[in-house]
């Protein structure tokens, strides 16, 4: 039973980090209908800035700087690349983000080189004991941060003018534009927010128990794809639920791999995708996604 609870806690805490990344995907998709494959590199940008600056500025300032830089880079990608693209097709725009990702990742991994960069966070490897189960402080911090940020966004979507503009843009771009919503500002804002979220996620992906940021960190962003899609690409609640489902599925599959050896060992990485396929078969637009209705 303890094992189960431990796996559960582990899954929820890592799932909340996936949810942060997935939320970034969802925000960009809502605002621009583009799937952002460059998210992995935004993650790396944020993490790199935090890791490099924390010794000079101290952790908190470095975190702020990392979030700011990642947000600016996200906005720049929108401003310099996506906005100027003449291709109207969303698939082509998705593919252009692959190009951006290659560019940014190559430069960042070149800078990181062969090092493992520590983040200098205040939690280090301390743990908290709750009812016989020890939980790393970093994980609690991740959970609290993710919950706070996601709540903020849900509220912002509902009540701020930015959120309303974004929802209007997601609903019907042309009508929104006619009603005076500045689409360019909405989409740039979305990219900046996604960048900022990616930086926060990068922090929690590279602190304890992971030793730090290195060139392979960006690979984790891939796990947020199934999270975003099974919740529904245009649903913020979906990102949260999707992230948690993926985190739990992965954690439980890895923890109980000795009981399911008939599937082959090391199934942990595959399970998120299996879960995603099953959910998509039942609900093609994800759990909370809006179904596209076609009227002729």
């Amino acid at each position: 039973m303890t094992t189960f609870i431990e796996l559960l806690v582990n899954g929820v805490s890592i799932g909340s980090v996936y949810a942060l990344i997935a939320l970034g995907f969802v925000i960009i998709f809502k605002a621009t209908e583009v799937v952002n494959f460059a998210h992995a590199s935004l993650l790396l940008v944020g993490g790199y800035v935090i890791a490099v600056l924390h010794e000079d500025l101290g952790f908190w300032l470095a975190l702020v700087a990392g979030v700011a830089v990642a947000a600016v880079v996200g906005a720049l990608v929108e401003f310099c690349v996506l906005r100027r693209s003449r291709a109207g097709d969303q698939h082509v725009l998705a593919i252009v983000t692959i190009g951006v990702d290659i560019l940014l990742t190559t430069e960042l991994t070149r800078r990181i080189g062969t090092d493992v960069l520590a983040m200098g966070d205040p939690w280090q490897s301390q743990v908290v004991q709750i009812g016989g189960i020890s939980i790393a402080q970093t994980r609690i911090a991740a959970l609290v941060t993710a919950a706070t940020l996601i709540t903020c966004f849900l509220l912002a979507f509902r009540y701020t003018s930015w959120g309303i503009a974004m929802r209007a843009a997601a609903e019907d771009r042309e009508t929104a534009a006619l009603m005076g919503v500045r689409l360019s500002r909405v989409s740039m804002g979305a990219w900046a927010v996604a960048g900022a979220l990616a930086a926060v996620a990068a922090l929690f992906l590279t602190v304890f128990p992971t030793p730090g940021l290195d060139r392979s960190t960006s690979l984790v962003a891939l796990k947020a794809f199934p999270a975003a899609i099974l919740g529904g690409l245009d649903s913020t609640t979906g990102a949260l639920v999707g992230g948690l489902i993926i985190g739990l599925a992965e954690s439980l599959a890895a923890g109980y791999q000795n009981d399911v050896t008939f599937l082959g060992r090391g199934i942990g990485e595959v399970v998120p995708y299996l879960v995603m396929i099953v959910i998509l078969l039942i609900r093609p637009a994800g759990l909370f996604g809006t179904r596209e209705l076609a009227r002729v």
Partner: protein
Amino acid sequence: MKSTLRMTAVTAVALALAAGAAGCASDKATGGSGGAGADGVKQGPGVTDKTIKLGVATDLTGVYAPLGKSLTQSQQLYFEQTNAAGGVCGRKIETVVRDHGYDPQKAVSIYSELSTSVLAIPQFLGSPMVTAVKQRIESDKMFTIPSAWSTTLLGSEPIQVTGTTYDVDMINGIEWLLSKKLIKKGDKLGHVYFEGDYGGSALRGAKFAADKHGLTIVEQKIKATDNDMGPQVAALSKAKVAAILMSAGPRQSASLAGIARSQGMKQPILGSNSAFSPQLLATPAKPALVEGFFFTSAGAPISADLPEVKKLADAYAKKYPGQPMDSAVVSGYGNGAIVVSALKKACEAKDLTREGLIKAHRSDANADTGLGTPMNFTYFDKPATRKTYVLQPKDKIPGGAVIVQEATESELATTYQPPVGSY
């Protein structure tokens, strides 16, 4: 119909023209080179009167870049020193360094280039990469030292796996745990290992030792993208293992050790030689790694008290200041020495062809580079040595590790028959 006709015409014209052009003299028509140099030494590909070209196929931009960089730099250092001392056979050594970024397709392309331009490959990083071109290495008789220690690469005359294989390391490691009373017969051992031949080889060794000592192995297979060892630790803690074997990357070791210690698990952790890198000691993972974490290695650590190693440590620190000195530095340097020693022997026999080089290399039954264990190169279906060091991470030491047990060959390891060409 018309277009079919036109296409036929186009093809016919093209074929005729091509036949004409192909008929012209081509460089390739001359066939294999060879022949002897001015000094009467028979020369193979990549050898001239002035130079011997050696190929390096490594990873400088992919996931194994830290390993590839250390290996390549130390190897360059060795060849520079050799050239400064007059070269080999009156010829200077030239290296052709190619970066495959751990991409098999690039590795195959790179090998195609090297296959015609160099005499031997003193470093070929990554066992999937070497396996991909193994057939060609055999038919080209290209003397190759892979920078991978899985049993998959055994059994091939031109391929020299240096040091021990992962399975032998694990057997020696488990024997060491038993001898130190860290585990006892009947215990359960957890083994966290990478999917693939690295983890597979290590697991095979662990199972062999477990069988002989009545131990049980609790397997946890992971992939290179798994960074969080929480679920694995939870599962091993539930299984009440007495020690954890670790055959994965440094990140996974750090995560595993960190979580286990934070949950109060005091079991010793024993890693394969690729499970640790000194860079980890600069991260928050340090406290968990300097206590109760050990790893095996066929090569001596750079902190070892051997004159050759000390010389290397000084020269390396001078040439590449501030760069990490992991075990790959010793390994790369040693492999350079092995190739140069084979070249020297081949030179004495006046045969610097690929066949001559392999013959010279395979005649060495007790090769001692002074960097660790002497090796026997006369067979290729068994590891060249079965002696393993047990090391422990330690802060503020070059290379970040100290010797806990000198290179030792356990009795069990001598009776072990490694699988050849598989894992």
